[in-house]
């Protein structure tokens, strides 16, 4: 949980420093505190208020979301029992669910599938998303038109998007089968073959979520300051030089946050895999979230599924923790570039 003290120190000056007492205090209004008391006590009261102010501002967000700890802890408690949805008996069984998970080869297989899936999807989407966002960050007519249209795939629920892909790629009735046959790939079976199932999943995931990357990176590009570029132009830097030494460092924080969200959501991805392969053929795409779902609901063994999901949770936590560390460093570096 603790991220290290040093990382929190930014080279920004504190907001509080230049504040004058005559200007009505922003934080007071923000935290909805009553105006300060008498002049003599003001500085002490102010200082105390100032110290608590950030917490007060953050409190609503925390209060709204912290409730999730209750079901979370309830789930952890359940994991030490044999609670199942098709039995009325519950007894305490200690770490049995955890031990049987660690001993099951299915679990390790699924862990590998989960990591493979998340890595492939995130890599493809980041590269594609950044590339397209750079291309869109231009004032030609194509870019201007496509800027908003290209995010439409995100607006279809992933389950339905997957269904459409399934139809398009269907070897009997799909629209794509004609062109595929023409280029000699008529027998390509997409999600219906263990060899190409993962590939198909990545294609669909990239179709759905690349726009997520595009939106965020484009917003990042659009808020870059102009002056450093003008300077670079005068210096006659090549586009690649400008990208590498100017755009990339300044964009790094946005890229990393985008990466965090893509990675943590693709590690947990359920809808697309469920709708496309249900974990098959065989066990070829049986990810952790799918196996946990199967165990918890169709197989009724909720308590047995919880260790898998906690493992997934810990994995996401760990990966995000590291990436957020990078993000903070990038944020500081970006502040130094311009």
């Amino acid at each position: 949980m603790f991220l290290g003290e040093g990382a929190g120190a930014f080279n920004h000056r504190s907001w509080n420093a230049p504040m004058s007492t005559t200007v009505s205090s922003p934080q007071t209004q923000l935290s909805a505190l009553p105006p300060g008391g008498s002049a003599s006590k003001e500085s002490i009261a102010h200082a105390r208020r100032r110290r608590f102010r950030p917490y007060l501002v953050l409190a609503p967000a925390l209060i709204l979301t912290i409730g999730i700890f209750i079901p979370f802890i309830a789930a952890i408690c359940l994991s030490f029992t044999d609670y199942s949805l098709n039995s009325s008996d519950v007894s305490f069984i200690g770490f049995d669910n955890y031990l049987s998970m660690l001993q099951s080869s299915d679990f390790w297989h699924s862990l590998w599938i989960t990591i493979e899936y998340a890595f492939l999807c995130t890599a493809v989407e980041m590269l594609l998303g950044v590339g397209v966002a750079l291309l869109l960050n231009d004032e030609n007519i194509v870019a201007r038109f496509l800027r908003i249209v290209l995010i439409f795939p995100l607006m279809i629920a992933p389950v339905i998007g997957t269904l459409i892909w399934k139809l398009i790629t269907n070897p009997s009735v799909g629209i794509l089968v004609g062109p595929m046959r023409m280029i000699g790939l008529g027998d390509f079976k997409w999600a219906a073959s263990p060899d190409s199932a993962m590939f198909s999943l990545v294609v669909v995931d990239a179709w759905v979520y690349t726009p997520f990357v595009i939106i965020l990176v484009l917003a990042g590009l659009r808020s870059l300051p102009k002056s450093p570029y003008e300077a670079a132009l005068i210096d006659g830097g090549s586009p690649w030089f400008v990208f590498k030494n100017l755009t990339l460092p300044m964009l790094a924080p946005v890229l990393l946050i985008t990466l965090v969200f893509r990675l943590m959501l693709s590690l947990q991805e359920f809808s697309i895999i469920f709708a496309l392969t249900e974990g098959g053929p065989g066990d070829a795409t049986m990810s952790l979230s799918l196996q946990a779902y199967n165990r918890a609901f169709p197989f009724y063994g909720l308590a047995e599924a919880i260790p898998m999901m906690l493992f997934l949770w810990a994995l996401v936590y760990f990966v995000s923790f590291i990436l957020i560390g990078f993000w903070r460093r990038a944020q500081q570096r970006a502040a130094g570039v311009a």
Partner: protein
Amino acid sequence: MKIRFTWPSSFAVVSAVSLALPLADSARAQQSAFDWKQASGTKLVVMLNKHPYADAIIKRLQEFKDLTGIDVETSETPEENYFDKLTAALASKNGTPDVFMTGTYQLWDYATAGYMEPLDAYLNDPSQTNADYDYKDIYEGVRNGGRWDLVPGHATGTGQQWALPLGFETNIIAYNKKYFDEKGLKPPKTFDELYKLAKQLKGWNGPGSYGVAVRGTRNWATIHPGYMTTFTNAGAKDFEIKDGKLVSDLGSAKSVEVTKEFAQLVKDAGPPAWSSYTWYQCGADFGAGKAAMLFDADILGYFQNVPGGSAEAGNIAYSPPPVMKEGDPVGANEWIWQVAINKSSKNKKAAWLFVQYFTGKEHGTWAAINASVVDPPRKSIWDNPNFQAVMSKMPGYLDTFNTIIANTSVKFTPQPYFSESTTEWAATLQKIVLSGADPKAAMTDLAKRITAKTSKLKLDQPAKTARQ
């Protein structure tokens, strides 16, 4: 169960004497006096799966309300997610829903877990069950699908009635009659004929077309239609009780042999994207003229043949599922959509009236004729000339049904690991078809894994799942 109501003692004697229905004269005399209004003013919450059977209920809610004075709130959930939602609702044991739709196989879990109200006491009570109900009118194989004694390994048909049928489906061959007639082909009688014909029909209607549509997703639903029907017609069994333990029989020579043959059928004549096919892709391919035959639920072929339902509508006919040797008795596995009462419901009297009304003769007949509720579970409906008139537009449907109904039943052995064992079964089938897994080794391994679970079940008492 705590019975809060009282009934005339003469009826109590009738129901206490036997589990049979009160078709005694005394009950008959009461039929005009049956009090449909006995739970008037109650409000029921009903969970339905999106299905024509559920649509038929919704269409006639007003009639039910008028007759009983019971208010009903329904919800229809997409099938893919229905059971997850239902399981969560039942597990919370807070009285909602009062009534729910269920399928035979899920019933084994829900009844075992104590989520379901046993129905015999209601069925046998003439003050609660209209003498017109005529339980025996429901085909034996279908009503038995809702009856089980809760002992894993014991076949359905003994013990309590847990749910009553709205409609059901058997598994048969539907074929493109127009094409078959053009080419002088006959629908296959044996599995061998099916294999040869289906293989020969590859590309029959342009590129991408193939012989026979069968399901293949990694899901229990892949096993129960064509495959399970073939499996049992071949004389194979899913489980055996050995030394007081429930042991999977999927590794037996018979099981391996039939699985091998079925896998070969899929490989040589099934849908190219077989492992991503569930019932609706199979039905759609068949209706679009991509599959020459469909080995799946009879009603799936039925809906493709309804005018406007598909490109090939009007060209479709039906024939019984293939047997292994000519002359073998022909039967099919079945799937039944049923309604049942939540054990924790606080409105059981009203809930029973709901179940009774919507599984009764009057609604069933109306729904079969007017609302596409095929296959109706009652013999009287199949004998109804109006229904026969509707079905006569489906060549071979009635004959096929009458040929197989005597041998149509739930072919799976009831046990609370049904979903897990059949899902793994489907995964194994996928490995055999797509990854070249050796049928014998794969099925033996599957049997071992299933037995590891089921052998822990206690068979001498109503099941309490012994999860480890």
